[in-house]
């Protein structure tokens, strides 16, 4: 796998091959979208953000010095940088309500015998989303990268463009606030 990614990166560096770029970034698009949604809280805007991030990535991927192993955090870093520019995204017109995407996801789900369960899950998601949205954006990004993407502190630091210590503090502070906010739900 690593050899394949090295080959693709070399092919991209040679003539900015679209197929090579596609092969390199495709595995990370889903995670980029997830992170972008966490930052923007709007599926449509998040996709716009990711598209812009991909365009940037295409333009600068040749400059990536660390090799394909660092590609994932490098892509996250672009998304975080773009997502932390609130003016850029808040000025955009929203064509869907913030929870439209979630409604679609719920409706896509197969009908279950127990109608309560999806409701409870949705309630939980909503409360978690509210608690997350109350955090500063850097903490949101940090806890998402740690919990959802599984990055360690160094990976979070690389993606956030900060020191490891700062990343550690961002993650721990975000988690502390979330635990306090959702204490009732987290009780066994």
């Amino acid at each position, binding site marked *: 796998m690593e050899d394949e990614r090295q080959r693709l990166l070399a092919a991209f560096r040679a*003539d*900015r091959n*679209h197929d090579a770029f*596609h092969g390199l970034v*495709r595995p990370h*698009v*889903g995670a980029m979208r*997830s*992170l972008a*949604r*966490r930052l923007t809280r709007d*599926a*449509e805007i998040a996709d716009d953000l*990711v*598209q812009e991030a*991909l*365009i*940037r990535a295409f*333009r*600068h991927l040749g*400059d990536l010095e660390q090799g394909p192993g660092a590609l994932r955090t490098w892509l996250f870093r*672009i998304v975080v940088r773009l997502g932390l520019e609130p003016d850029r995204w808040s000025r955009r017109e929203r*064509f869907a*309500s913030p*929870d*439209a*995407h*979630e*409604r*679609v*996801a*719920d*409706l896509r789900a*197969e009908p*279950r015998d127990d*109608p*309560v369960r999806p*409701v*409870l899950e*949705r*309630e*939980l*998601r*909503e409360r*978690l*989303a509210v608690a*997350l949205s109350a955090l500063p954006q850097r903490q949101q990004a940090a806890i998402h990268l*740690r*919990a*959802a993407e599984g990055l*360690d*502190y160094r990976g979070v630091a690389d993606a956030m463009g900060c020191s490891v210590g700062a990343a*550690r503090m961002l*993650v*721990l502070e975000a988690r*502390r606030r979330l*635990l*306090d906010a959702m204490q*009732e739900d*987290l009780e066994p």
Partner: protein
Amino acid sequence: MSACPFTEVVLARLLDGDLLDTDLRAVGDSPAAGMRLVDGRLVSGEEIDRHAAECPECAARLRAARRLDAWIAAGAESTGSGAVGDDALLASAMAAIAREQDGASDAEHADVWSSSPTPRHDDGGRSRSGWERGVVASRLRLVARWALVAAAVLLAVAGVRSVLDQSVPDGRRRVSSDDPVVSGIHGERDDGPRVVPEQGSGGPAREEVRRSTRDGDLARAEGAIENESTETGSAPEDTAAEARARESVDWTGAWVVFDVPDEVESGVESGAGHHGVRSRFRGASASGISLRRLTAAVTRPDLAAASFPLVRLRAMSLGLATGSMEGVGLAGSPSAYERVAERMRVAFLAALVERARAERTVRQGSSASEDALVQAIAHWPDPRSLPELGRVVVGLLAVEPTERANGREASRGAARIERALELRLMRGADRDPDAVLAVARLGLSRRLDARLVESIRGDDRALDEVVSELRGATARPGAARLLLDLWRDLDVRGRLDGEAVEIARWFERDGLAAASCASFADDLADVLRGSRNAEERERALLASAFLREPRLLTLLDGFVVGAARQEALLAAFAIARTLRSDPGTEVDLGGLSSPAWPRGIELAVRAAAGDASARRALTMRCSSEEEAFVVDESSRSPTAFRYAAAIARRSERSSPVVF
């Protein structure tokens, strides 16, 4: 919040893998290296591990943090649209990159991407590649650009024409049924069936007609569908057959065609992912549809209110009507809601109730269901559906046997609904008439009713609406009590001006359903038996006179015998009106009379109830001026009845009651 100072480092170490340097290299290289500062002292990794194993507080916090991380991860997964959406987005980005490579200059790039996180790449190779493509390729691109410009002009012309067509006031405009956006936008106003093509099918669009669920209309609707599907959607004129078909079908033109249901259908069936909104938006722009109209269509406030995507509703809806996914969008649109077929409304409300019931088991959450329920109740259009409404609402509010074991949760859920309504009532009747109507129809609690009285105080129009609702609702619990409260509120604020009889007509039997009569009688009986307030009892007695409910006769009889003078007179007046309510029935006071009954009152009652001999006997004691008043009015006015009783007393000095 955890009070243990170790909690943070425990989470960092055991959850985030925060390995200290002491774990990786020999101790002693640097005394402080790899140590963590906890509560003012440096601790090693081993000590943190030891503490985590011993401290219950840290263990609980660690469990909660693990659960939290799992939720965040699950939330990130659930918000994704899957591989299809990722591919679509990546393809879109690649197309943008290709366009940029073809059309944009390096200078433009420098302006647009000046905030790039990394230094801009000097792409000399791309320029060389452009030269290598040769002159032929450049000319082909030039031709392609001009072709695109020409196509854009043509589409713009088509768009203007479409907009002009839509502005035709007689409703005979024709919209291309092949365009899903056009179908969606004009769904609410379109008189005919809406045809929604399947997205991404590659072939002819699958036509799905939103139609009424009424059986009688279904066959006609299907006929119309066949006519519609055999013609080209862009035909310039309606055919006569189609026009007849449209006229003959009661289309539920108010179905709200929001993005959600269409998106769902297209997403499920074609795997188009959640790009449906944006894709349709872009497609519509290209075909000349007004950007403003599109934006208005997808940002309607009632779409935001429809935030209860019920899986159950979907299943129920699909079982009732083809294409009834739009039901999801009905919550915030009362006008649309009123025009939806009856069966769908029942399913919709049942789904709302189900959702609200489910919420009762949740400690916190949004009030979307309550809001939707309030709106649904307030705008329930068909009186024939009220029994159904009553059943589901009673079901919603009832404490089920399985929930009795957990009364705390159940009471909390019911309290949440009350609280939601109470908060809305505090806005005032003019600002939230829906809440006022909902409370008036539901009868959740005396406390909420008291809030209702406060919220409409001084608002005569709202008062009239509430009274109308209370008289119209089917066996609304506590309706008569609420009417008495409203009456009292007017009384104590000096707003009656001697209109007590007019207010008492709120309880007039005529126009009330049988179930409501019984419910009113129960409420009045409760007041008469339990109230320690003489004025309240008097209002209830006067109300009983207009309710004319035979079940109250025994109770009223007791008041005549043993109550104070004013109450005894009012009770006698109520008895007289009750007995008179059916002129065909012979007056029989035998069961009511007792030795304690004052004969003077009995005579007045008999006369007011229509007994001919009693009227003659009473007339003989009247002067000519008194006669008309006593004979004609004693059954209508308590004042006249009192006068009649006083006349009857003239020769009944043995009466134990002094009038």
